[in-house]
């Protein structure tokens, strides 16, 4: 190839402050970005994948983090040695960037149109009326309705997807040569993610930009990448055309990452529902009242309406929905964290909702919960052993006995013996989630409610925790209500799947039915939105699916 690359990164190293877990965030990184291509930079958290982009945009948190060596050539000229004014002309002008969190990336006190106009004001000579016209045009190009009206709105009136479109319009304002997108869809729901990915892909093709797309999700890579760079601990481990990396990965780390991408495989036998159901939810309804005051009526938010499902012993039921669908409502009602307005929740025939505090207490043991955030779900001031033992002690068990049992449980979830004497901050996210599972098991429950138990974890860790949950479920014949936003994750562990939308269950069936013959249009759009669905994970990397016999 003879074309000069748009961007030529040579031996780039970025130093972390002393005392960090490693000296270099980015270690001797070399790659190029050509015009009219999408380069995906893939890695887990802490791989240094965002740092390169930040260095290019002058966003490294000076003075703690700094470039220690190498060069960043934009059209042959080193960005790092340019005078500040010249760098600023590049930023937002020739190189633009879209960030991960659309909810916080816009100034809350400035009208959307003005925020886009600022870029034009800085980098072009357009007079104010022309700028305004251009802003409206840009908003229309990113597919926003009523662009003229929207330009006058404040960010808080826009949804996450709309804000991300605004961010893209802002990045496109000055027709940049390079667009850097730093996990632009990670914070979005799966259907919104699909729309934004489609938009990004079409805009890139139209304008022939060079695009650096940073992501942790190989599904997204399969969706849009031309070329792929895989990073780990600041080093480039694999680099090549997308088809090679996706279908014939060479480096063991790439192979591991691809193998842990959650995916649906025709695997499970349908769950044989034996005997009486363990739990029956019957027309459960919960309405939250938000806001309100002397002069304003409070808004009703229906978190759950007519929610009915059954869980048999040993069965795993998945409750799948996007944010705001009310998927957590039922789980929280079952464990008694919220009180539904109407309906019944029968546990082995007893209606939990009819019980008072004292009457409910015995059932607390039988139903336990695993929480989402491994960093918030453990009290930072208690030793891990105590955290696990606290529940049984509250039910009158002898403390020494409870602690011995806690050690056994910690071993069972794969932590070593000394874990009980340490504090939560000494553990990684995945390990903490194991502790949370041990805490739930200490109560010897019959039903486990797992609320997004892996969504805060890196993919490789996700796989391990899912495996642990499935293993325990089988060994103890536990029933499980598994709440998730990710259909792919649900596909791996669930026998039965309920799809929720706007407080209602729109589809309920065996995992096989839901995946192969979805009946509801919304379920179909969810399945359709799964990134990389057209990509077949290489056969040798298809994991032995959890729960397959």
């Amino acid at each position, binding site marked *: 190839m003879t074309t000069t690359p748009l961007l030529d990164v040579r031996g780039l190293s970025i130093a972390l402050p002393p005392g960090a877990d490693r000296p270099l965030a980015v270690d001797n990184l070399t790659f190029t970005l050509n015009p009219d291509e999408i380069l995906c930079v893939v890695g887990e958290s802490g791989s240094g994948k965002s740092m390169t982009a930040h260095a290019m945009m002058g966003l490294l948190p000076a003075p703690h983090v700094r470039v220690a060596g190498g060069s960043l050539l934009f059209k042959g000229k080193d960005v790092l040695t340019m005078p500040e004014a010249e760098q600023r002309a590049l930023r937002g002008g020739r190189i633009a960037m879209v960030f991960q969190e659309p909810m916080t990336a816009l100034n809350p006190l400035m009208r959307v149109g003005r925020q886009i106009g600022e870029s034009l004001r800085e980098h072009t000579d357009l007079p104010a009326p022309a700028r305004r016209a251009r802003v409206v045009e840009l908003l229309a190009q990113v597919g926003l309705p009523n662009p003229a009206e929207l330009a006058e709105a404040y960010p808080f009136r826009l949804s996450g997807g709309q804000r991300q479109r605004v961010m893209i319009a802002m990045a496109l304002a000055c027709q940049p040569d390079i667009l850097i997108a730093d996990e632009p869809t990670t914070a979005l729901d799966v259907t919104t993610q699909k729309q934004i990915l489609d938009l990004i892909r079409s805009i890139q093709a139209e304008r022939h930009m060079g695009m650096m797309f940073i992501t942790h999700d190989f599904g997204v890579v399969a969706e849009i990448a031309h070329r792929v760079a895989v990073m780990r601990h600041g080093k480039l481990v694999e680099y090549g055309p997308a088809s090679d990396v996706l279908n014939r990965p060479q480096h063991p780390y790439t192979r591991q990452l691809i193998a842990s991408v959650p995916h649906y495989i025709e695997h499970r036998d349908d769950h044989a529902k034996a005997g009486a159901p363990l739990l029956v939810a019957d027309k459960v309804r919960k309405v939250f009242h938000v806001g309100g005051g002397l002069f304003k009526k409070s808004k009703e938010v229906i978190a759950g309406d007519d929610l009915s499902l059954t869980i048999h012993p040993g069965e795993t039921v998945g409750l799948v929905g996007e944010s705001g669908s009310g998927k957590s409502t039922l789980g929280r009602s079952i464990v008694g964290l919220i009180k539904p307005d109407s309906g019944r929740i029968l546990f082995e025939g007893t209606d939990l909702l009819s019980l008072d505090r004292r009457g409910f207490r015995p059932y607390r*043991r039988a139903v336990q919960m695993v929480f*989402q955030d491994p960093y918030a*779900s453990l009290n930072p001031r208690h030793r891990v052993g105590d955290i696990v033992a606290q529940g049984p002690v509250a039910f009158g068990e002898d403390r020494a006995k409870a602690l011995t049992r806690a050690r056994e449980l910690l071993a069972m979830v794969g932590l070593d013996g000394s874990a009980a004497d340490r504090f939560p901050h000494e553990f990684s996210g995945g390990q903490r989630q194991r502790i949370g599972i041990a805490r739930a098991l200490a109560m010897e429950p019959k039903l486990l409610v797992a609320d997004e138990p892996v969504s805060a974890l890196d993919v490789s860790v996700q796989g391990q925790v899912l495996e642990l949950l499935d293993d325990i479920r089988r060994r103890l014949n536990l029933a499980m209500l598994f709440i998730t936003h990710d259909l792919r994750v649900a596909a791996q562990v669930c026998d039965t799947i309920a799809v929720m939308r706007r407080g209602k269950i729109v589809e309920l069936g065996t995992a096989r039915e839901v995946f192969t013959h979805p009946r509801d249009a919304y379920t179909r759009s969810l399945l359709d939105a799964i990134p990389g669905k057209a990509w077949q994970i290489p056969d040798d990397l298809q994991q032995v699916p959890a729960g397959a016999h």
Partner: protein
Amino acid sequence: MMMKSDFWRAFARNKGAVLGLVILIAIVVLAVFASVLFPGDPWDMATAPFQPPLSDDALLGSDMLGRDIASGIAHGARVSLLIGLTSTAAALAIGVTLGALAGFHGGKVDDAIMRFTELFQTIPNFVLAVVLVAIFTPSLTTIVAAIAIVSWPPLARLARAEFLSLRTREFVQAAITTGQSNTTIILRQILPNSLSPIIVSASLMVATAILLESSLSFLGLGDPNAMSWGYMIGAARTVIRQAWWMSVFPGLAIVLTVLALNLVGEGLNDALNPKLARSRG
């Protein structure tokens, strides 16, 4: 979990805090040994009136009745520290209890308590303190009570905010689902995690309480039996043209004490909330 040695290392990294601690210890020593260093009643005439500083028998000068300023400052330190500590303790008891109840229970309880707190926060607190002490006649008890009554609202708001945010944290919800009682949850799970900001505010409140006490005494609302810094400045006000030292030295004593407490408070903040301290750049 913060280890003790970590705490001291973080505290000692803040040079101002160490300086504050040294000053504070000196003032405490002065207060404890006031009767040894300056035997006799500070209200008694010790020398001739209006002696300037560095006189033979009055290091910091004397007032219009020949009372020793240095002795007054030493004895005044007792009153200041005593009132500062007791009124903070009382304000903590009111504020943290109300704030914890509001934050833990939420809903109507929270509404009612917060309305009440808002009322006390709107009232000009110094005016209320003046009215209370004036009507109930000045004494150590009424002064401490008045300061506590006007100082608790910020502590209540702080405790409420902490409890409110901790209550929805997953480890507290886990404590609920594992059947722990409300008392256990409040005392074992929430309170220890909300303590650091409360300790920091309390240390700053001792400083504010000392300022409040001195202001009350300045207006003539001090305990008539206890020598205090504010009283000394108030008495010196009318003769400031003749005897600047009468108001300058007690004033410096207040500044040093309050400054020391503020510095220690900041050091505590750095040591107890390392994340916040770092973000302050």
